[in-house]
């Protein structure tokens, strides 16, 4: 009985101690004691883990980096290919826009027959204003044929080879075009210059010319068909003593960015020099 009592008592005491420890742990009183016991363990655990990860990385990370680098370079290639495709498509879109505009213009004037050509160069002579196009006599282009865009008159064919032609622009110093003022129904002459500026000359002094007047080809002289837009008057110079007044003219076309043109192939220029004896 004594033995039995002492065992029971021991069990009860052990249970009470365990419960007490658990209660102390829950209440937070044992935290410093637990910390002192656990900290070295956690540190060791952390050190082992770090060493393991370092070894793991040593064997696995280089492969991942190589893979990533390869993937990165593939993606970069793809991006650059897509970018070049975008540029190509934008280029095609812009070319298509130009061609659609030219087509609209050609449809609006069905009496003329056109050949569309791309501008492939510009004359290296800085004093003159010429463009080179990629169509020539093999395509039916001949000397003197007028060249236009949807915005107006560009010039005329000045020289032709089998596969290319040279256009003399309307602002070339050797260019002289007979024009008609749209609202005044008066005629004058438009001449170019070495700087590319155009001047309207031979305007009678009694004509009330205003800035903004639209100029069209008159058809006189036989070099160009009539009623093609040539430019717009910017300002007028008028002196009381002069018989004629002059005016500065802006072309409706920006020749520096011209990319495609239409050559009117059913119009042949007439050489009136034989008749005038010049």
């Amino acid at each position: 009985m004594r033995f039995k009592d002492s065992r029971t008592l021991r069990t009860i005491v052990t249970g009470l101690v365990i419960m007490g420890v658990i209660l102390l742990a829950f209440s937070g009183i044992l935290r410093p004691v637990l910390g002192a016991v656990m900290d070295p363990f956690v540190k060791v655990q952390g050190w082992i883990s770090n060493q393991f990860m370092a070894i793991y990385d040593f064997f696995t990370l280089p492969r991942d980096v190589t893979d990533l680098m390869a993937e990165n370079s593939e993606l970069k290639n793809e991006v650059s290919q897509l970018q070049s495709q975008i540029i190509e498509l934008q280029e095609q879109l812009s070319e298509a826009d130009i061609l659609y505009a030219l087509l609209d213009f050609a449809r609006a004037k069905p009496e003329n027959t056109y050949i569309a050509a791309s501008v492939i160069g510009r004359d290296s002579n800085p004093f003159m204003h010429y463009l080179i196009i990629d169509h020539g006599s093999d395509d039916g282009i001949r000397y003197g044929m007028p060249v236009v865009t949807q915005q107006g008159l560009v010039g005329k064919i000045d020289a032709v080879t089998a596969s290319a032609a040279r256009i003399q622009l309307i602002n070339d110093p050797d260019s002289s075009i007979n024009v008609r003022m749209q609202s005044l129904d008066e005629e004058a002459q438009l001449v170019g210059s070495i700087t590319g500026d155009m001047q309207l000359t031979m305007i009678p002094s009694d004509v009330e010319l205003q800035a903004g007047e639209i100029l069209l080809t008159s058809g006189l002289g036989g070099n160009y068909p009539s009623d093609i837009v040539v430019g717009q008057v910017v300002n007028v110079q008028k002196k009381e003593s002069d018989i004629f007044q002059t005016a500065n003219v802006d072309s409706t076309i920006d020749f520096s960015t011209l990319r495609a043109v239409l050559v009117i192939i059913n119009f042949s220029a007439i050489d009136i020099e034989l008749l005038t004896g010049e």
Partner: protein
Amino acid sequence: MDIVVSSVLVLIFTSLQLSVVSRLPIGNGMADIVLLLLIVWCLHPQAKKFYIPTLLAGWIITFISSVPIPAVFISYFLAAILTRLLINRLWEMPLFSMLIITIAATFAQHIIYIIAMQFQGSAIPFIEGLREITLPSVFINIIFSFPIYLIVRDAQKFVYQEIENE
């Protein structure tokens, strides 16, 4: 070898001149990279067959451009001969020679062009032409001459080393 390389360079530069450089004017001026190529090519003391690229360049530009035929040949040969004469005196300063010849050759070329076009019947005012076209062209030619000098000199190094090795 030097004939082949100089001819290829003339073809490339002519193509670039017509399709790119002519479309990049500053003011009303325009660079002539074919002229610059000839000047830099002739600056090399060993470029004794300079007349071949000069003839080729003259022939191509004459064929394409509106400039009167003799004017192109005269201006290119004048630049080439001027360069050959000057390198005997200023052979230690090729860059300085190039600048001097670029300025002189551009002026000479434009004066020849203006006179030739006036003979042809074009109304080119002399003073206005020099002021509006030539001065900016000289400026652009000077700018273009440095990269062209580097490119052509590299090509010549390769060509004339090959010849020496042979």
